[in-house]
């Protein structure tokens, strides 16, 4: 089914012999990446290539395997089969850790600490100087529009606010590669727009962003998207390209068309 898919822009040359994916401009490359939990196959032979300096969206319904894919890329899960390369190195590799940022789906903050102390903890863990932490904190708080909440306990923030703090924590050390699991869930439309503006700004500064979402309309902001369904990559390319390929008018219809296609196969 994958082979039958129309021309694929990203899957250009066959570089299987060369693990040094960064040479080919890929920040992330996976080969037959598979994860099974018991009898359940969460991710099935995922071949993913993500260009450096791009915003790459992983789209799909709940339970499609997006989060599993992100966790495998971050080294939080061990693949059942296949491998993943990040910035030219095979995962897991401790030397990658300072270069990547990870925002998990759950809040994963210390509720008993203030916003400031959450941010500075992660700054310290990445070895940032106190001065640098202060600078980064200032920038990030402005970005997430929580400057006034710096000294509030995270426990006292709303769900959306916590989500924004969590996003800031994953970026405190200016990673080259950001993995964001559902970064815009529970964020109001106005702020969501500013998020995308910010992501595109980071991208221009040379950051690669891999994010998951199940909002099809959001995917328009991505340079490239990968559609994941039942643990399989059913299509990838630019949003426009995928729409064109499937003879539909929007990504939602495109996804439904591709899903029908997968079900037949």
């Amino acid at each position, binding site marked *: 089914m994958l082979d039958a898919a129309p021309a694929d822009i990203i899957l250009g040359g066959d570089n299987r012999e060369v693990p040094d994916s960064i040479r080919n401009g890929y920040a992330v490359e996976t080969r037959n990446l598979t994860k099974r939990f018991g009898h359940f196959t969460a991710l099935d032979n995922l071949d993913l290539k993500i260009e450096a300096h791009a915003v790459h969206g992983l789209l799909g319904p709940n339970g499609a395997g997006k989060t599993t894919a992100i*966790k495998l890329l*971050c*080294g*939080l*899960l*061990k693949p059942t089969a296949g491998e993943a390369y990040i910035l030219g190195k095979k995962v*897991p590799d*401790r030397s990658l*850790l*300072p270069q*990547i*940022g*990870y925002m*998990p789906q*759950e*809040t*994963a*903050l*210390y*509720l*008993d*600490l*203030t916003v400031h*102390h959450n941010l500075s*903890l*992660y700054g*310290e*863990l*990445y*070895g940032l100087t106190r001065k640098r932490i202060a600078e980064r904190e200032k920038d990030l708080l402005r970005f997430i529009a929580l400057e006034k909440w710096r000294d509030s*306990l995270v426990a006292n923030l709303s769900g959306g606010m916590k989500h924004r703090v969590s996003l800031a*924590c*994953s970026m405190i050390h200016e990673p080259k590669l950001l993995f964001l699991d559902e970064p815009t869930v529970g964020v109001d439309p106005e702020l969501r727009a500013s998020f995308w503006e910010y992501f595109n700004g980071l991208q221009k500064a040379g950051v690669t962003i891999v994010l998951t979402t199940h909002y099809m309309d959001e995917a328009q902001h991505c340079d490239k998207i990968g559609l994941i369904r039942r643990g399989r990559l059913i299509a990838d390319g630019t949003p426009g390209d995928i729409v064109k390929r499937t003879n539909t008018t929007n990504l939602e219809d495109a996804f439904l068309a591709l899903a029908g296609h997968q079900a037949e196969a």
Partner: protein
Amino acid sequence: MSIRRTLSITRRIFRGLRHDWRALFMMFLTPIIGVTVFGVAFSGDVSHVQVVVVNQDEGYQIPPATVAVSLADAIIANCDADVLRFAYVATEEEGLDRVKSGKAYGLIIFPSNFTSEVYAKGLDPTLPINPKIRVALDKSNVTVANTITKAVSEAMLKASESMGIESPLVIDADNAVYAEGASFRDFFLPGNIGFIMFMLTFILTLLAFVSERTSGSLQRLHVTPLTDSELVMGYALAFSIIAVIQTAIVLVTITVIFNTMMAGNVWLAFVVIAVLSIMSLSLGILCSSLARAEAQAIQFLPLVAMPCFLLSGIFWPIEAIPVYLRPLSYAVPPTYAVNATRSVMLRGWGLEHVWVELVAMVAFTVAFLVLSVWSLHRDRG
């Protein structure tokens, strides 16, 4: 291992506590309450036991005295008034009724020719008489019954001595090798500190670390340069500081409020208990790192607490455990602390004796911490 990252974790725990006054309050008040409750309840020795006496002893005129004296009266006078409270009745039936109705724990009967027979037997042990104090006890409470027997025997020895009656056999147990004048509380509290500190620090860490996993922050930490050993050491350090403060509070409480015997060096006692606490928190981290959720972690509590409670000799001496179970005592960590604190506080032993226990506890600590790191490491993937 990076000291800076380790300290970041330690600092974050204290920063969190700063916003949790309730936890902080509990952390430092619970040890005091724990020791006080045990200290007051086990004020130690049994006292104010109601005993009924039927004294039929007619006394005897022991030469060269000119008046008759009663050995029975002397025995009663020599009984510790705080331990036994006497009530007098005329007949045995009346006395037995008191015991049967639960108004007294024991009935002591001195026969009419008691003094004369004891005197005669003292002069000529071959005489075919056998002077007896008859004691009828309510043995439903073994400890109380034993206390009555012991008090009467001791009083008897003192009384015969004061009256110049030769007793054929005397055990002189007044020369204590160690812990002269120790009360039951003096024996009990050193072990009790071990138990309280063990439970406190164990529970505290058990719950603190498991929330790192349930909140998802553990996964986030796994993606930072922080290593598993830095994480474990950061936790161990933070809770060690807390444990050392708790240890100091407990020691001050038992010495100031209960005036517990401190035959040895108080600083050595402090070190022993502090090392025990650090060992307990390491076990807490280990159990916590094995658990997936708070509910699971709580299940470790009886699993760990029960054997320690029963086998470490805190309440009952190890000598009271069946012989085949005794080796197990040395597999439960608090045993070493209980032995060492008693040795220091009651026997006055120094480092030259208790180093064995200290080394054992440090070995347990290292093993627990290494296993914690291993258990966290195994989780990845």
